[in-house]
């Protein structure tokens, strides 16, 4: 739950803080809850804190999953039924 958005770390500021960028909007947030986050990483931001780093490879994999057609499963089912 909870409103959180993925934003790109643009700049590390005071220890533990960073400026993130989402669609041109920049905001300073806290990195207190994540380790090893650096400039260029995408993080999930909730109430001014980064909660987790976004795994970009997994993001692409998920997008590819959305594009999958369902025929493969259907074919399999038809084959099983025979």
């Amino acid at each position, binding site marked *: *739950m*909870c*409103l*959180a*958005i*993925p934003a*790109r770390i643009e700049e590390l500021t005071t220890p533990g803080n960073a400026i993130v960028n*989402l*669609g041109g909007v920049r905001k300073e*947030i*806290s990195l*207190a*809850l*994540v*380790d090893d986050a650096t400039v260029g990483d*995408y993080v*999930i931001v*909730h*109430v*001014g*804190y980064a*909660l*987790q780093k*976004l*795994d*970009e490879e*997994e*993001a692409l*994999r*998920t*997008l590819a*999953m*959305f*594009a*999958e*057609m*369902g025929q493969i*499963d*259907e074919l399999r089912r038809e084959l099983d039924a025979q």
Partner: protein
Amino acid sequence: MKYVDEFRDGELAKNIAANIAREADPKRHYRLMEFCGGHTHAISRYGLADLLPAHVRMIHGPGCPVCVLPIGRVDQAIRLAREQGVILCTYADTVRVPASDNLSLMRAKASGADVRMIYSTQDALKVARDNPGREVVFLAIGFETTTPPTAVAIQQAAAEGLKNFSILCDHVLTPAAMHAILAVEGGVALDGFVGPAHVSTVIGSKPYEPFADDYGKPVVIAGFEPLDVMQAILMLVRQVNDGRAAVENEFTRAVTREGNLKAQQLVADVFELRDVFEWRGLGSVPHSALKLRPQYAAFDAELKFKVDYVAVPDNKACECAAILRGQKRPQECKIFGTVCTPENPVGSCMVSSEGACAAHYSYGRFRESAT
């Protein structure tokens, strides 16, 4: 916006919808609960119900911390602000929640109480630092997503020796709430759960495994965007068809089995379980909420100030308890849309824009009066 827009693509949505329509067995009904208020909001806001076949229905769960916050807890905050002159800091979500005596935090503010809306617990700490002569109390609500930010603030306050900062701790736990929904006599007619997105980034997918194992209900953790929700629904349909009950993760880009261990450790360092906590709509649920550990007692507003929790029962006509469990729909409540509206919310489901009733009222009620 990268990693946001792509997950809202209309063409891909149609593709997933086609898959769901193809794979959902027309001879049975699928009753799926999305636990999290953010998902309720996504479903309503994008009209996802229109993309699902009629026999796949989404039931709105209680995963909105504002909706399940008992009136008595809001009363505590209001009393502190009005009677003890504290600066009451809160997330904006709570300011309109109706409390006792026709008050809300917003109305208390209008009558002179110092109520301030903040975006982050860091802002609350700043208010405390900037106002050394005043007591600052933060109304700490939220599920496991929102708890770590409070933990960070408490540890920072302790390290700085901030004497004028404390919290009203109303943090609640997701798995306990899911148990409360499922542990109903006679069982509950739900085929599966769409698991919370951001709670899961913190707690991981592990805590949901008992639901699959013990209750035989599949759980698919879904990301926050409409395509995530659609895909998760598809994955649930597949599990139901196959007679499986497992925890699957659609939100792999942000959720792992273990979750964010650093955040979990921080929370464990600062908080401990309350024996029991009252949830609006669900009644008293054991081990479902947190309080500060003894070493942080100086930051516990309930100990620092004389402000006991007094339970306030809901309106007798309110059907939230049944609606939160998916046993009734908003439109089946006698006072839905008449006495109880977003402007004048009577029960928890109408209080926040993601409560089942508010979402239905704001986004979906046209379906009833279809033209």
